[in-house]
């Protein structure tokens, strides 16, 4: 919890930034974390981000927590014969030397039971738990409800 407040303080101090916020734990680097504005708190929210693994061992994202939602879950949109379904994902594999993106139409974190309205331009912290690399917290930028990609830019873009 202390870490979350520290992160919040950091965000408040940093102000708007054009570069994507990047956090690391072990050999994992998390960046491009964004969400969409919510209408009220009844509908589930979403979090997208990118995880890069520069290490030599596979890891996996196994859970997420955030003060913005009581029941955040990992999901995956799957298309079967043109029909979209959204099964719960037990874990999101992060292969050694590779990267995985939680992005529209694929893996995503679904925020059930929002505790606050997600307002465009604001940020909220999300803590990711990895099977081996442990925990890391990243600020998530709330974008427009119609956004389809993060507005911040990665160093390699």
């Amino acid at each position, binding site marked *: 919890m202390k870490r979350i407040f520290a992160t919040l303080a950091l965000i408040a101090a940093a102000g708007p930034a054009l570069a994507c916020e990047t956090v690391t734990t072990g050999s994992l680097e998390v960046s491009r974390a964004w969400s*969409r*504005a919510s*209408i009220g708190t*009844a*509908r*589930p*929210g*979403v979090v997208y981000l990118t995880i890069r693994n520069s290490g030599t061992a596979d890891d996996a994202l196994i859970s997420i927590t955030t003060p913005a939602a009581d*029941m955040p879950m990992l*999901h995956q*949109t799957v*298309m079967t*014969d*043109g*029909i*979209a*379904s*959204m099964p719960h994902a037990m874990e999101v594999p992060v292969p050694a030397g590779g990267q995985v993106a939680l992005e*529209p*139409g694929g893996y*995503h974190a*679904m*925020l*059930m039971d929002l505790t606050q309205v997600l307002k465009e331009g604001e940020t909220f912290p999300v803590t990711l738990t990895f099977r081996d690399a442990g925990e890391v917290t990243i600020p998530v930028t709330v974008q*427009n*409800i*119609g*956004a*389809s990609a993060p507005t911040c830019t990665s160093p390699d873009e």
Partner: protein
Amino acid sequence: MRSATLLRGFAMAAAAVAFMLSVGWWQTRDRAQDTAGVLPLPIDRMSFTLMDQDGKTVEPQDWLGRPTMVFFGFTWCPDICPTTLSDISGWLETLGPQADQMNTVLISVDPERDTPEILGDYLSNFDPRITGLTGSLPQIKAAAKGFRATYRKVPAEEGDYTMDHTAGVFLFDADGRFANIIDYHEDPRYAVPKITRIIK
């Protein structure tokens, strides 16, 4: 005696094979009916009555005379529906005033939660040319049947639920004839020309 037993054995084996073949045929046929290659009806042969976000009654025949683009979704879905709506808003923006003469329609597969007001509230975040339709469960079912679209309620935690649904965007020409489908996440380089073809 021995040959009779042998014969009976053969007959039983043959019957078993025939049975398995028929089961296989039946399963294949059943699966084919569910999904593959069944095209939406022409609009003038569809029959349903839904309500738009302003509370106005809409029937498929109202669309005739203008090209039509229809997709199914629901506002409680965090990932695919805002993405599709944002894709469609992008296509409409690319098409510019050309798209003014089209019917662009979202049909909710979750009418229990998507009231006209909620649809209106939600759609106000996207291109204003998108109409949202909702209605009674039997009318939504009738609409999906016309498009040969499928949807299913899937229970989630704590009495909550989500919906599986056909994710493609259906295109019809001004005469109501089915023209094409834009698959989910299709490259905009292909999506926009598909729409242009029904406008011309």
